[in-house]
């Protein structure tokens, strides 16, 4: 589990379920960070950054039509840049400080503008230079809202995306991050979320679902051929996501040790299993083993193993991956069609569904009997843990679902959410950004 930062909460912290390898050290402020750990976290930060750009940019961008490629890329990069700045202005402070009256839900303003942080500052347990920890967390904050844009891609207006993302980061992401990692509600409950399955993936998946329902279907959806303009790009992006996810998951150990090694091997095998599962299911049920299916399955596996990466054993991760691959395939290829909504890039079908599977299953695969690590403190009882996990999922479902709904409505008051049908036909690249992606 992510040994997040509890400066003033040593007692609370010790109640939280920890990764077995992670000695919490009761805030020995004096300790100097180990440079091996620091090197790994610097690198992990860079890897998570790579997930955003080019990672998710290409994975998503390859699936839209050429005329909307730049629109997707611009939205992702702008959102990431804005959140980057907001993170040091107030995000880090609100997510990772102790908080006041509402400390179950939100931190406080004591580190606005990173006041008081210097190169010599460390995390509470002295494990890492604080700047490094801030950077690592920042990449998670930057990534999450970019995931959402996939659901309403090819039709939502750029100003609306920008405004929504700022609000959503502030009122949805930060509180959830605080609840899970900042010593808030879900941490108190003992919910396990090693690398952010709830904070990042369920969160983004639900917001995406709400968004695409509100914005409506693309013109021609279900009638015209709306084929991905470059599955090559999607593969590149997907591979880069996997690559960067090693930093996301194994980096969440916050140490360069055997625990990081466990998270890494799980990030290998769950992903491989899920990719193969989707491919095989598709081969059997639809007649063709597709590359898009293979990559989609791999991403579903990555999503599902995220909360479990440091808790499950490798065999448990394989089972989790197989499950996520098959369920997400069925969801995206059948259930979604039955409902008939247009989630352009299956943000909900992969991040939402995969995230929920992972969050709940983490309560199972952590079982020592199944090769998992067990809990750091307290005795493991499967039913109890699964219930805690489920409750945590429900809280974030509600918070994000309701929050996103309100914020979309709010944004819609200030600026139209959706491009005109003429702009949509011409493509958002020309209509909104005045550029074309390709001139061969």
């Amino acid at each position, binding site marked *: 589990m992510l040994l997040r930062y509890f400066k003033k909460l040593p007692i609370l912290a010790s109640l939280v379920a920890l990764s077995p390898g992670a000695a919490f050290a009761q805030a020995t402020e004096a300790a100097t960070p180990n440079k091996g750990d620091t090197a790994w976290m610097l690198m992990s930060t860079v890897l998570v950054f790579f997930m955003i750009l080019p990672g998710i940019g290409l994975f998503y961008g390859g*699936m839209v039509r050429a005329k909307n490629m730049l629109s997707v890329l611009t939205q992702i990069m702008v959102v990431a840049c804005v959140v980057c700045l907001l993170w040091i202005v107030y995000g880090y402070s609100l997510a990772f400080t102790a908080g006041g009256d509402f400390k179950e839900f939100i931190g406080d303003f004591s580190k606005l503008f990173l006041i008081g942080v210097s190169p010599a500052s460390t995390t509470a347990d002295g494990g890492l230079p604080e700047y490094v920890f801030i950077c690592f967390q920042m990449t998670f904050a930057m990534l999450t809202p970019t995931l959402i844009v996939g659901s309403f891609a090819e039709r939502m207006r750029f100003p609306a995306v920008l405004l929504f993302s700022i609000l959503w980061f502030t009122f949805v992401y930060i509180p959830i991050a605080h609840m899970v990692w900042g010593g808030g509600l879900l941490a108190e409950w003992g919910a396990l979320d090693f690398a952010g399955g709830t904070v990042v993936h369920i969160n983004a998946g639900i917001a995406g679902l709400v968004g695409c329902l509100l914005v409506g279907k693309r013109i021609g959806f*279900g009638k015209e*051929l*709306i*084929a*991905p303009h470059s599955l090559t790009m999607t593969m590149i992006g997907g591979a880069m996501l996997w690559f960067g996810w090693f930093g996301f998951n194994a980096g969440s150990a916050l140490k360069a040790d055997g625990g990081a090694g466990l998270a890494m091997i799980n990030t290998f095998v769950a992903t491989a299993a899920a990719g193969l599962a989707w491919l095989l299911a*598709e081969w059997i049920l*639809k007649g*063709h083993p*597709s590359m*898009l*299916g293979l990559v*989609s399955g791999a991403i579903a596996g990555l999503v599902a193993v995220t909360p479990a990466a440091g808790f499950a054993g490798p065999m448990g991760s394989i089972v989790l991956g197989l499950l996520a691959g098959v369920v997400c395939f069925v969801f*995206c*290829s*059948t259930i*979604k*069609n039955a409902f008939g909504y247009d989630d352009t890039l*299956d943000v909900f079908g992969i991040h939402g569904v995969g995230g929920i599977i992972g969050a709940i299953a983490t309560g199972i695969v952590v079982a020592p009997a199944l090769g998992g690590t067990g809990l750091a403190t307290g005795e493991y009882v499967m039913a109890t843990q699964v219930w805690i996990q489920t409750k945590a999922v429900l809280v974030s479902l509600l918070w994000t679902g309701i929050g996103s709904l309100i914020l979309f409505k709010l944004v819609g008051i200030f600026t139209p959410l959706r491009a005109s049908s003429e702009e949509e036909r011409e493509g958002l690249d020309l209509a909104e950004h005045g550029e074309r992606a390709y001139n061969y």
Partner: protein
Amino acid sequence: MKFVIAIIKPFKLDEVRDALSSLDVHGLTVTEVKGYGRQKGHTEIYRGAEYAVNFLPKIKIEVAVDTAIVQQVVDAIAAAAQTGQIGDGKIFVLSLDSILRIRTGETDGDAL
């Protein structure tokens, strides 16, 4: 003079060109097109969405020839492009009023 438009299967282009060369026809213009016709397309599946794609890649050859040899040209193209399977394509012949070679200003027969 005639303007011959042939729609053929892409992989037959080299053979058709060779056939025309052996008739001393050394100029032609080629366009990548999509053809719709009797030939069945294929199905593409992207995640949940299945599409029947009926527009198939074809090559369009345009060649201007003297009226005297138009039949030979049509026959040569047809012979070279034929596989006997649906989708082999069509040859259309239109009448041409005039031809001009831009470089020299030569016209009609001289311009070929």
